[in-house]
């Protein structure tokens, strides 16, 4: 059993350790968030913290099973996974259960339910890696880029139909993968520019915004007027920007749903309805802000214990960390996440196989996007889009899909010396 020895020998134990640490932090904070005096034990299956413990065991078993699989099987099954995910995403639109306005869940019976969009992230990354690692595929070529974009875009459209805006946006984070594989850096810059323009034109009169960008563009054109190509590019870009600014008003008023508009308004400080729409974020900020440096201590968070923050064990779990463990605890958690994604990038870069590398970047991007948006939401820097904090938020689908996501990478990595 030479093979057997080599897996566990090559598994990246640092990542596993961070993974376990985050899971346990999550478990304890769920315990604090939904603490119930009648069920004080942390492994009481009547309660969400008891259930989370069960999910953790299941996730760990699934993780070990993945480590025991053949790497080649994973690569080979990529299109199948993708197909199944797309099928489930279609199925959920038909037979799904509507929870909180999103038709995102398929009932499995026994109180458990599945969220196909969680698994779609994994399947999409896998297929994207499979496609981009092909010998004749180069992202720099337009055709390849289109196919890659289609692989990402198809599940996005299906999820948008649920409509789960949060999970849809998660797929956008895969732009980092494409960038790493050669996509022009301008895509990142243009993305950032468009986000900035979007926010600016909501915040300010769009004629002012147009005036400002036109001035900047004209200055650049005057400075580099000898470079004909640049002038043309700038003028084209300016035209596109102006068109975008006008479309923002339309998107904002007609495409976005009212609750999404309000959430954006609240982050931008346009409205502050502290008892209605802004209640969650305001209470979340109060919870985190009142933690001070050392926090109020485990099970002593008043905001947490007396349920001032809704969705506190799921999307707003970070409140509990901020309140009970303070800035110190928040730093530890953010540090662990940063360490985890940097470690994943490190793992990705040490691969000989482009497949594993691309997949690794996918894992890093998706996890990071989740962390950044979730925490930014909790402290009022991003609108509420409702995505969980990886490994920490309560929920079986979320924990299981992130575990599969990560352990597939660990499996592929443990096999890095082999040829895939």
């Amino acid at each position, binding site marked *: 059993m030479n093979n057997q020895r080599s897996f566990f020998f090559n598994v990246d134990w640092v990542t596993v350790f961070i993974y376990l640490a985050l899971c346990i932090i999550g478990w304890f904070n769920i315990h604090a968030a939904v603490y119930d005096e009648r069920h004080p034990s942390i492994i009481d299956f009547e309660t969400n913290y008891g259930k989370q413990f069960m999910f953790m065991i299941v996730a760990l078993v699934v993780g070990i099973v993945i480590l025991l699989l053949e790497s080649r099987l994973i690569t080979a099954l990529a299109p199948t996974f993708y197909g199944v995910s797309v099928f489930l995403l279609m199925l959920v639109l038909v037979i799904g259960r509507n929870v909180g306005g999103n038709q995102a869940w398929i009932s499995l019976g026994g109180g458990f339910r599945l969220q196909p969009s969680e698994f779609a992230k994994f399947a999409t990354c896998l297929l994207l890696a499979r496609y981009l690692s092909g010998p004749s595929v180069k992202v720099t070529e337009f055709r390849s880029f289109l196919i890659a974009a289609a692989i990402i875009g198809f599940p996005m459209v299906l999820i948008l139909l649920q409509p789960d805006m949060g999970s849809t946006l998660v797929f956008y984070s895969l732009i980092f993968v494409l960038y790493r594989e050669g996509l022009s850096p301008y895509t990142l810059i243009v993305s950032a520019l468009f986000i900035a323009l979007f926010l600016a034109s909501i915040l300010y009169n769009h004629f002012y915004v147009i005036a400002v960008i036109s001035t900047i563009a004209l200055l650049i054109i005057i400075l580099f007027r000898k470079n004909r190509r640049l002038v043309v590019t700038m003028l084209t870009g300016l035209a596109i920007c102006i068109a975008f600014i006008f479309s923002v008003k339309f998107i904002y008023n007609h495409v976005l749903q009212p609750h999404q508009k309000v959430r954006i308004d609240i982050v931008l400080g346009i409205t502050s309805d502290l008892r209605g729409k802004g209640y969650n974020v305001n209470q979340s900020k109060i919870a985190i802000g009142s933690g001070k440096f050392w926090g109020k201590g485990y099970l002593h968070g008043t*905001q947490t214990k007396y349920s001032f923050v809704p969705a506190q064990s799921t999307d707003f779990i970070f409140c509990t960390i901020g309140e009970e463990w303070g800035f110190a605890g928040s730093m530890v958690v953010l540090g662990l996440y940063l360490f985890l994604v940097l470690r994943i990038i490190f793992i990705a870069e040490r691969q000989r196989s482009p497949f594993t590398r691309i997949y690794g970047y996918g894992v890093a991007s998706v996890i990071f996007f989740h962390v950044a948006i979730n925490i930014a939401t909790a402290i009022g820097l991003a609108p509420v889009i409702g995505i969980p904090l990886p490994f920490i938020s309560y929920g079986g689908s979320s924990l299981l899909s992130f575990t599969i996501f990560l352990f597939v990478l660990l499996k592929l990595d443990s096999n890095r010396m082999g040829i895939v």
Partner: protein
Amino acid sequence: MNSFFERRYVIAGIFITIIIILLSRLFYIQIIDDRYALYANNNVRRQVIQYPARGPILDRNGKILVQNEPFYDIMVIPKQVKPFDTAEFCKLLGIDKAGFDKRWIKAIKYSPSLASVFEKQIPAENYASLQERLSEFTGFYSSTRYLRAYPDSVAAQFLGFIGEVTDRDIKRSGEYYRPGDYIGVSGVEKSYETVLRGQRGVQNLMVDSRNKPKGHYANGLYDTAAVAGQRLTSSLDINIQKLGEKLMQNKVGSIVAIEPSTGEILCYVSSPTYDPNLLVGRQRGNNAANLYQNPYDPFLIRPIQARYPPGSSFKPLSALIALQEGVITPSTTYYCPGYYWAGNRKIPCNNLEAHGLVNLSIAVAKSCNGYFSMVFQKILDRDGAKQTEATFTNWRANVNKFGLGTKLGLDMSGEGRGNVPTPLHYDNIYKQGRWRSSTIISLAIGQGELLATPLQMANLECTIANRGYYYKPHLIKAIGTQNIIRKEYTERNYVGIDSQYFEPVINGMQAVVEDGTAIRSRIPGIVMCGKTGTAQNPHGDSHSVFVAFAPRDNPKIAIAVVVENSGEGAHWAAPIASFIVEKYLKGSISTRESGITPEYFMNANKLPDISKYKGKLSPADSLKKLKQDSLLLKQKGLKSASKKSKKDTTTSFLATHTIRKKDE
């Protein structure tokens, strides 16, 4: 192979930058900005005021005059209120939509973030059903309060009542009171407010997002317990108080009885009275308005606020001063032909009855106007007519020593002075030096400008009973479990008359009851010394006055009874006084030789004619005025309105009591 390798650093850089942005923001809201800690605190901490039970008031034998019953106030913190079913809520509280809006606006006006009273005084039986549902209405909660309850419904004017604090009360107390608090408005409730109110407690509770209490903040470290108000033991005897109130039914007037050896007030009846329970609870406003519309003014505290000419009951005092001044001796005699000439003024005796040769005791017993007019002139004219002003000033000072014309310092506010006219008063009417003893002769028989409160009359009897001194009359014997008697209550106040001069006067007073004007009121087995009075006044029939003390030796009770506009002292006031004295001394009332029974007096209706009673106002005018006053009452609260009415009554007395007429 591994192209774009360097881009890993760009991606890692973006990740690190975003994490740093998040950490900076966290640093800002967790460490730099203190507001959130405060908000979190405000979210969960709820200060609940613990209202102490107000001290009960007992009678001298420990029987309860007033105690407390729990009621529930519904409180609201407008900021915490979440949308709810208003109709359902109104139904639970038993109010309508308009009433809800009114209360809601009032609460917001007071403060959106502080608790204020939404609905007051829900009785325990109605609260039970409300309590179950109250948690559904976030922002509303209940607070227990104790309201006054009067098991025997007696001594309304003595006990007084409590009411909501006014803005002025709050300011004057240095913000001790809060809007919606209760404060003693009149009577003992007012004068002993600081003792009765106790000390408020504060509970710092933790509540969850649905405002449900979850325990004490910091394990109750900052909580303070409410300290109940102290128990007051009054000097009142509930048995004779009840009897007195019954005897005075359907009459206007007052009874004051004092224990001469202590100055403790035993009986304090002001009639008409009212059931003090009417001024408690949610119907308080309506009841108060109705009571205020009563033309006989139940809110007037007649024992200290009504002023009557003492009439003949003043004569013993006149005699005592003359004896002390040495102008007469007990054996000085006077021949009464049925009238007396003072200058060119004829003072008739009662029904022009000629008393013949009378000495001091007989004059007292027969209430001979001539004798006392003679005595009065002797005092004032002893240094010649030119010195009248000086001798009158001296006489007046002697009268003041008995407590007439001054406040006695009772432990209840609103006490009147009565009136003993000053020389200046006569100077203003007749010009200086133009008045003589004959001009003011009606003072000799307790008429004229002379006015006394029933308390002053009773105190005068205490002084006679004690043969020369009185203790300051007071209403409260003990505070809490300790008999805290103020030092001033143990000091004898001498009136400047040697004790030897009292016996002849007391002999006469004994004769009044034994075989004089009050013979019908004789009590079997008790020697009562008294004096009737029939005080002439412009409101109709004379006021029936009787003052007395009993027994003659080692007196236990001194009493003054006034029944307004009912006729002669002997007919109404004296029998009523005798029943009270007997009930107090023997515990029961025996059959009288004269055949008078308490039941007869209880059932008799001697209410004065309203048109005459309210003086100059025509019926239509008075109705209008009452309406205005009751409006005023609703606006400004009971307190100011009742004060106003008191003033009205006393000024009308002053204006009309200058008519001088003969006495018995």
